[in-house]
């Protein structure tokens, strides 16, 4: 069997059994990168020498029995907003083109401890602001299924790398759909955990109250396995939660009998592409056949989610990104006269247009006199959306919907109309506003051959329900094939 076709968990098992070594796995991935990277451009930074060296060290540890974990020796990719000690971390921005962190993100440390081996850093929308991975200063990533199309975003590099077999799994971050939407566009599995499940320490913040790190994987089993390793309380992150129920792999059961699934009418209405709708409804039918109970309902408040999201995320971003000022690290303009001119030129030159747009939007909504009307109101909407979900989860175990209104758009199509791009987040952002969890599972393709994703949403701390439903669906599909 070709090494590249292994899932992460399968590869780890093969490595443990000795049929494949960690070094061979890394070699296979690096040669795949040599073949496809020029078309896909999933990575911002790849350090082949360091990757091979790390694979060799890991190989030795596996041989001595020091490393036995479910991902030991498996090559992984990390979104370039996750700090990696000694390895350039750019957020796909000119602002951090020369930034080398002194520490690694907590989630990265957890995976490295488990023996996963870093290949490199994946491309993304600049500072995770965008839905297409086109706002990267290092050039856009292309959808491996059709390179004329975008991979989605902002974790587009991670999704494309998994889809193009340029890694065995990847981490992304999800502030308003940034894991689930590219997973859907690239035909892989992506999960946004409950807020507070994965430490944000070392994740370069975009919208702090919405950001979560999560896995992008080839299948649901890999997804549960990676999540289980990265989900842990971290005293360095005050928003981190002490959870006892993080044995996510125990939820990998083919059984949805009696599972109550709610389908929000608001998520299947106007603006949803016909092919996407049919695929997602067909997927729902599969679950129904397996014993789940489907029911339509009105979630309400859907129209308010996008304005609330862009108000909150932009406000937090405008403050989070203030530290990029040319003083301490990162880009500094070449010529300037005095401090304020330095700030102005550095930030004008260092940030791209989408980042500047959101900084301006965020600064505006926080300005004195506007704070109550915008930011405070958005927080109220956020609380109401949470209540709407609470009401839904009083009746349903899981909510089922599309991930995005359409399949991956063509390159260049979205940036010309940012408002349309923002509307593309309509089914995913509410999950971040409510702080709950959601997963994107491949459920077919459109006539152009582009993947379609189904989204499953569950209440806070109910990832296991998502994983069980997703696993059941995935296996039913396999059986059908």
């Amino acid at each position, binding site marked *: 069997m070709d090494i590249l076709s292994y899932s992460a968990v399968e590869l780890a098992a093969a490595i443990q059994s000795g049929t494949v070594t960690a070094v061979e796995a890394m070699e296979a991935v690096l040669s795949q990168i040599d073949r496809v990277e020029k078309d896909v451009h999933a990575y911002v930074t790849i350090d082949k020498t360091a990757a091979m060296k790390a694979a060799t060290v890991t190989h030795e540890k596996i041989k001595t029995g020091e490393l036995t974990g479910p991902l030991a020796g498996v090559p992984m990719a990390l979104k370039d907003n996750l700090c990696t000690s000694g390895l350039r971390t750019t957020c796909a921005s000119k602002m951090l083109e020369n930034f080398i962190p002194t520490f690694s993100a907590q989630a990265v440390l957890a995976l490295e401890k488990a023996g996963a081996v870093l290949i490199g850093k994946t491309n993304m929308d600049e500072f995770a602001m965008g839905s297409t991975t086109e706002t990267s200063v290092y050039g856009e990533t292309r959808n491996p299924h059709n390179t004329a199309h975008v991979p989605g975003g902002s974790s587009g590099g991670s999704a494309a790398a998994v889809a193009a077999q340029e890694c065995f799994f990847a981490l992304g971050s999800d502030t308003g759909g940034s894991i689930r939407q590219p997973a859907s566009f690239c035909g892989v599995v992506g999960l946004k955990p409950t807020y507070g499940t994965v430490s944000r320490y070392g994740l370069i913040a975009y919208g702090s109250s919405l950001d979560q790190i999560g896995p992008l994987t080839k299948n649901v089993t890999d997804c549960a396995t990676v999540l289980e390793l990265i989900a842990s309380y971290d005293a360095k992150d005050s928003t981190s939660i002490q959870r006892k129920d993080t044995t996510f792999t125990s939820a990998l059961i083919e059984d949805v009998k009696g599972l109550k699934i709610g389908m929000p009418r608001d998520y299947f209405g106007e603006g949803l592409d016909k092919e996407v709708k049919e695929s997602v409804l067909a997927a729902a039918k599969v679950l129904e056949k397996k014993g789940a109970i489907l029911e339509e309902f009105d979630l309400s408040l859907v129209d308010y989610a996008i304005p609330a999201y862009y108000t909150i995320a932009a406000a937090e971003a405008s403050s989070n990104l203030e530290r990029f000022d040319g003083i301490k690290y990162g880009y500094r303009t070449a010529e300037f006269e005095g401090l304020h001119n330095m700030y102005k030129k550095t930030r004008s030159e260092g940030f791209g247009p989408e980042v500047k747009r959101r900084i301006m939007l965020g600064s505006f909504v*926080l300005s*004195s006199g506007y704070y109550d009307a915008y930011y405070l109101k958005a927080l109220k909407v956020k609380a109401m959306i949470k209540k709407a979900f609470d009401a839904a989860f009083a009746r349903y175990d899981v909510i089922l919907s599309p991930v995005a209104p359409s399949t991956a758009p063509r390159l260049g199509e979205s940036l010309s109309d940012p408002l349309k791009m923002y509307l593309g987040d309509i089914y995913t952002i509410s999950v971040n506003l409510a702080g709950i969890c959601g997963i994107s599972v491949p459920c077919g393709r459109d006539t152009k051959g582009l993947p379609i994703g189904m989204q499953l949403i569950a209440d806070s701390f109910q990832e296991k329900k998502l994983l069980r439903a997703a696993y059941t669906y995935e296996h039913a599909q396999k059986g059908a094939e």
Partner: protein
Amino acid sequence: MERQYETVIGLEVHVELATKTKIFCGCSTAFGGAPNTHTCPVCTGMPGTLPVLNKQVVEHAIAVGLALNCEIAQCCKFDRKNYFYPDNPQNYQISQLYLPLCRNGHVEIETQEGKKIVGIHEIHMEEDAGKLIHDEWEDCSLVDYNRSGVPLIEIVSEPDMRNANEVIAYLEKLRMTIQYLGASDCKLNEGSMRADVNLSVREVGTTTLGTRTEMKNLNSFKAIAHAIEGERERQIALIESGQKVIQETRRWDDVKEYSYAMRSKEDAQDYRYFPDPDLMPVYVSDTWLEQIRNRQPEFREEKMKRYKKEYDIPDYDIGIITDSKHLSDLFEETVAICGQPKKVSNWLMGETLRLLKEKNMDPEEICFEPAYLAKLIELVDSKAINSSVAKDVFEVLFDKNVDPEEYINQKGLRAVRDEEALKKAVEEVLAANPKSVEDYRNGKEKAIGFLVGQTMKAMKGKADPGMVNQLLRELL
């Protein structure tokens, strides 16, 4: 008729809290480290870092709030104050605006005009900024983040003060209360206590407030008094000449003794405050509050009353000793060992205050141990040393905190009580000073003083002067 003006003053006082580590990371708060040695990714604003609140900061702040009779919020939050300046590595300061920890307190102050209540509007927690060092020689600025993230509380008073005396009495009261709590050393000159003065004037009899200015950079009580007088005069002069007072921030220059405008309200920055999403709200449970309340120390007023009851020392001494927490601790601990309040008080009121003044030190800087002072008192009581040797020993004790007994043994300062040796010395002195002997015998009583002195000198000060006197009289 000349118009009469009233000055209205409110203070914003920043106090650096005496925690071992910073407010949002584990770095040391110690003063005086080499630049950027007490730093980590968090307090230098590295991307990806997050703040974690130091619980001790909240406990100190609550203790101060309780001591200043504040209501302690059951739930408070941290907000970000956004502004760009290189001393602030994130370009936002984590502070509290919307839901501060303490509100609606008050303190009683006393001036020559009597007692008065000053309201406390609020107390909130925040982080300090780093320090910019301007290198004129190299024409560049350097930044030291050792202070970045050092915990502060800001105590905001109501505009209840009317003159510099009240302001100073208020600051003294805050200083003493906070020192008693051990929450800060409150040194104005070192910046661990900083006061900004908000001042406006109005005609006597009016009830509305005039336009105020805020005065910064006040590093001593003297500077505060001068700045208040100067600003009052400046505002009155403006009004008298038909001009308006502009709401602005002014900086006091203590050398030139005048202030200049830093920024006016028009170009005041919009700080775009909003709740910091990286920090959770702080919930203060009744149990926690009770624990802190039970740990509150005895404050000065109660202490003064107790001293009056327990110790036979003058009110004046009580006032001086309780003025400093450190001095009163020293007093109580020494008395506990030797049981002689009057003598302990004498050492503190006499030699200790003299040396503090001479060396320009605060009582907080006293380094000697109560046990050693108790031992010194005992050495004098047992006539092991005479009182003049004791004063010399005390000075060494004050400087170096040495065991007085070991010291006098080492230096051979123990009083000579050997009658034979003394007698020999006296005889020698008498033989060497026939003139004085004759004077004494002729009725000049004063001459004996000279002979005692000479004997003491011969004994290198170690003799008991009483014994010398007695022997001289016998032999004469």
